């Protein structure tokens, strides 16, 4: 059977996951989403994985959920749907998660992008929340994460019209941090992942927690948590190593301890 998601290690401590159902435009059906969660959970445990990069195909990142699956679910079955838990597990992945988007990221595809810590786009990337056209709303955090990212005006407009955004608009509004020619998106995402994977793993972990936490707490609570993490890192060997290497003018060797 064809792998739903292919895995490779294109750089040291970088795991690249490529959605591999191009014939279905990488639609995120339950099986794919489940497999993605399994792979992330393995990556979570694997000390050889520092950063995960998720990508799709040059022409399509992921064109939404699987409509056939969704259409079969009535209100009762939707109550019991496993998808919210799957999304929650993606959200709680503790290592840096980079998404490299080429082509269409629509609906659930866009929502998967919004789960990433850092997003890089090819210039052919296109984003939309087309659920409204089906009489639905985005169901995997689309309204929440997008509004927090770009504000009410744009989130309302895009969710209510299903309008398509270009890579340039995505960059302008902070949905991605870089746009490159399509042929180079994955390469640049992997290079960035490699750079991050060389950093101290425990520091990365608390940076991710601390920044993701901004949506959950007030500034004063966030500052307290940041301070706690700051103090906690003082107990790590990697912090000593980082400081020593700085004074000795050499590159630090981090061990995640």
């Amino acid at each position, binding site marked *: 059977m064809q792998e739903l998601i292919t895995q490779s290690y294109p750089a040291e401590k970088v795991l690249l996951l490529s959605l591999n159902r191009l014939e279905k435009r990488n639609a995120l059906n339950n099986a794919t989403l489940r497999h993605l969660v399994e792979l992330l959970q393995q990556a979570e445990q694997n000390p050889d994985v520092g950063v995960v990069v998720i990508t799709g195909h040059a022409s399509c990142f992921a064109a939404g959920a699987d409509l056939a699956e969704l259409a079969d679910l009535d209100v009762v079955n939707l109550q019991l749907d496993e998808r919210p838990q799957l999304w929650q597990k993606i959200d709680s992945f503790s290592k840096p998660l980079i998404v490299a988007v080429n082509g269409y990221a629509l609906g659930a595809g866009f929502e998967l992008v919004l789960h990433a810590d850092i997003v890089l786009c090819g210039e052919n990337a296109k984003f939309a929340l087309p659920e409204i056209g089906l009489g639905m709303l985005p169901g995997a955090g689309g309204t929440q994460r997008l509004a927090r990212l770009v504000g009410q005006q744009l989130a309302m407009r895009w969710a209510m019209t299903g309008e398509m955004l270009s890579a340039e608009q995505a960059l302008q509004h902070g949905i991605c941090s870089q746009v*490159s*020619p399509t*042929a*180079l998106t994955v390469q640049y995402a992997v290079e960035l992942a490699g750079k991050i994977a060389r950093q101290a793993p425990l520091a990365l972990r608390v940076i991710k927690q601390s920044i993701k936490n901004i949506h959950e707490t007030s500034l004063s609570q966030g500052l307290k948590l940041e301070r706690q993490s700051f103090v906690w890192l003082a107990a790590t060997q990697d912090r000593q190593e980082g400081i020593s290497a700085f004074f000795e003018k050499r590159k630090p060797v981090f061990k995640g301890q």
Partner: protein
Amino acid sequence: MDYQHILVKEHNQVGYLTLNRPKQLNSFNVAMHQEVAEVLKNWTVNPEIRCVVISGEGRGFCAGQDLSDRVVDPDAAAPDLGVSIEKFYNPLIKTLVNMPKPVICAVNGVAAGAGANIALACDLVIAAKSASFIQAFCRLGLVPDSGGTWFLPRAVGHARAMGLALLGDKLSAEDAKQLGMIWDVAEDAELQDKVTALAERLAKQPTFGLSLIKKAIHQSSHNTFEQQLTLERDLQRIAGRSDDYREGVQAFMQKREPNYTGC
């Protein structure tokens, strides 16, 4: 391929599209727009076509919009001219600019209104000595469309763009060349041969590399210097992976003519 308003020929990897409503100076109506769009869409993706030539049949190149194709009843409600621009002219200009292969415009006669600006959207413009360019829009109370207000100041500078657009005077082919608005002028009788030779030469070049050059030059108009240097790095990375680059280097080392495939 049979079309009502255009002539289409494919020869030696060059696609020739000739606007063919000579009695109306090849002005655009809806049907001609649709035919042109269909042919250009095909050539954009067709790897057998490595250069495109656009020209006009008869004494004119293109007089822009066919005014008789629009409602001009002075008592009727104001027409929405934005509709045909959004539906036909803007997509046509984008297709020409984004075509991943060189596009030559052979301006055989008068190029007026959108006709003049379609020429400016092409990569290389060669005009017959008797040809002329007219930004006719101002004479009817309209604004230069089809990219005119974008291409003109970039091609000839702010002052001359203003003069051309506000006055709508006829600009001769020789003067257009002098201003740097077009690439070259040919004697009327020699235009066709000159264009064919140039097109066939371009069709043998590394087409993919040429498409990246087009992209870089088009993006330069809105990039900062830093962004453009980054873009050049990126495009060179991509160009370096092409078959034609390998072939070019090999041919150079072996002191022979390269045989480019366009990939």
